[in-house]
């Protein structure tokens, strides 16, 4: 019984930051039709930026709660700097061309960003452990869980809700949806489609960086943290369906809990299980569980 709760909590916590990354990934795919291999690198940049920004908090004599603001600002900074460079500077050159070509470009961006982070922050690990104490410990059943981890679940829920509401209930969101359905007609209607693309990409990058920033207290921030996130987030969006927000949530939960189960019960199957599920879904239901995109088949 204890095991089940632990697995669930761990799984859902992991699913939370995975969801935020996947949400960004699926949003970028939905609007720009780009499958961004480099998305995990943006998560890493968020974590590194948070490592840097949170050092300003004690330096400026601010109370530790301000680290949360620092982390938020770190994610924002990453998005403000990288989104325009990547989207306007590079990806825009390939719109309308073969989707696999853009895949190769995002793969190249991943390679570049990996080393850029090493150039900026070096290869030593960073630890952002202070914010982890901010929420104390919460007792569930007979065990204590770190309050901060549970806060991540709330953050993910807020992020998901915000994006969903933003898309469906605001004027800007409706315009984005129009562009998703038909960019050409939207352009004829006077929509500045280029701005919509930049906005969607910005939000996607911000979500990944946010996940990285707020997860930094749980990990040691060092080169290579992007790779398991790239792997897992891809599995999530394939399972949930490319372009689907509820799909990203369900996919994240499936992957998160499967991984937690594997870690505790079948340690040998950890990496294998995620990819196995992804392969099964691709073979039997390539559109994912929440059909949005039609899989190209003959």
């Amino acid at each position, binding site marked *: 019984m204890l095991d089940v709760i632990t697995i669930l909590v761990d799984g859902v916590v992991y699913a939370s930051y995975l969801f935020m990354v996947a949400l960004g990934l699926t949003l970028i795919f939905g609007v720009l039709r780009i*499958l961004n291999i480099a998305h995990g690198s943006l998560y890493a940049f968020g974590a590194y930026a948070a490592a840097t920004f949170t050092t300003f908090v004690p330096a400026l004599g601010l109370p530790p709660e301000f680290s949360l603001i620092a982390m938020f600002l770190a994610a924002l900074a990453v998005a403000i700097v990288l989104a325009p460079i990547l989207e306007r500077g*590079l990806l825009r*050159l*390939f719109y309308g061309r073969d*989707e*696999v*070509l853009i*895949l*190769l*470009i995002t*793969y*190249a*961006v*991943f*390679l*570049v960003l*990996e*080393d*850029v982070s*090493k*150039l900026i922050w070096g*290869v030593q690990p960073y630890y952002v452990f202070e914010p982890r104490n901010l929420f104390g410990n919460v007792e569930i059943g007979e065990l204590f869980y770190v309050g901060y981890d549970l806060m991540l679940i709330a953050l993910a829920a807020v992020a998901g809700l915000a994006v969903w509401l933003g898309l469906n209930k605001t004027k800007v969101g409706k315009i984005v949806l129009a562009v998703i359905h038909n960019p050409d007609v939207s352009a004829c209607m006077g929509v500045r489609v280029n701005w919509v693309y930049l906005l969607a990409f910005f939000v996607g990058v911000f979500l990944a960086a946010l996940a990285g920033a707020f997860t930094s207290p749980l990990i040691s921030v060092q080169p290579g943290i992007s*790779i398991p996130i790239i*792997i897992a987030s*891809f*599995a999530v969006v*394939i399972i949930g369906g490319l372009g689907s927000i509820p799909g990203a949530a369900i996919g994240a939960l499936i992957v998160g809990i499967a991984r937690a189960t594997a870690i505790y019960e079948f340690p*040998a*199957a*950890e*990496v*294998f*299980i*995620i*990819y*196995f599920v*992804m*392969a099964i879904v*691709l*073979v039997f239901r*390539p559109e994912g569980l929440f059909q949005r995109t039609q*899989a*190209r*088949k*003959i």
Partner: protein
Amino acid sequence: MHASTKKTYLAGLLSGLALIVLGFALPDWLLFTVTKAFGYGLVSLGIITLMRGGLVSFGQGLVYCIGAYASGLLAVHAGVTEAPLLLLIGMAASTVVGLIAGPLIARYRGIFFAMLTVALSMVLYGLLVKMNSIGGSDGFTLPEPTFFGWQPTVETSDLALYVLAAIVVAVAATACRLYYDSMAGMLALAVRENELRVEYLGSSVFNVTVRNFTIAAALAGLGGTLNGMALGHIDPLFSFWTTSGEFVFIAVLAGHLSVSAVFVSSLILELVRSFSNRYFPETWQLVLGSFLIAVIIFLPGGIGSLWERIKGGRKPTGQKAAERAAEEGRAAP
């Protein structure tokens, strides 16, 4: 025999001989680098074969790794050390996997095909990492290979493997060129351009895809076995998606028009890798990534298209059009 077929056989024979002779002049470290380049090139040749059918596989690591492990395990546990035999075994193992996986994934296109190949290669990676009986994530080392009974000395082992690799590459390159120039190869290009029409002309796109995938698997198995022997060590990273990404990089750099461009590209990659590892170990990926972007932007047809522009076209039937295009400064069809 057909004129262009004769030409291809001749080209293959001459390149093979030239490479072997060259081997005697190269220093050991370069022999090792070029042998690895040959191994990588073989896998990328398979990716080119798939690209000529309109598909990109980001998971060739799967069959590359299978070839390496199959031959490697036989070398370690069954005492098989004959390099030529190991190559055949590695190729056979990968081909079998290709024949099994091919029909399963041949119906998918675009990014779904790419994702599926990644998923399969990562499933293998996940499995191998946990199989401690065969080395787990550390992998295992291989015994020194023999060549038709002869065990080379430490000084000659690099050269021996290089010569074998050169022969394999010459044969594989010739075979691929013959396939590309055949009607079956032309049909594959047609599939790339318009699948619908191919079906309505009575030919099966599915069959073409399975055929291409199996050929790619065989080539990857050869490459994996070769590299395993060159490195002397095999581990699950052979199946990791970043390894597969390097094969794709070579294929993009080479373009799908010229077979020799593939091996030139893989050599470039290996040389840049050695150079970077020595002088800029922290920016190797930056170089690779920037290079890839530059190639895609400025030379979308790959190195092969440069070749073709200079030579004025390969296929006799396309020659007039190619010459006209060359005059007008456009890329050959």
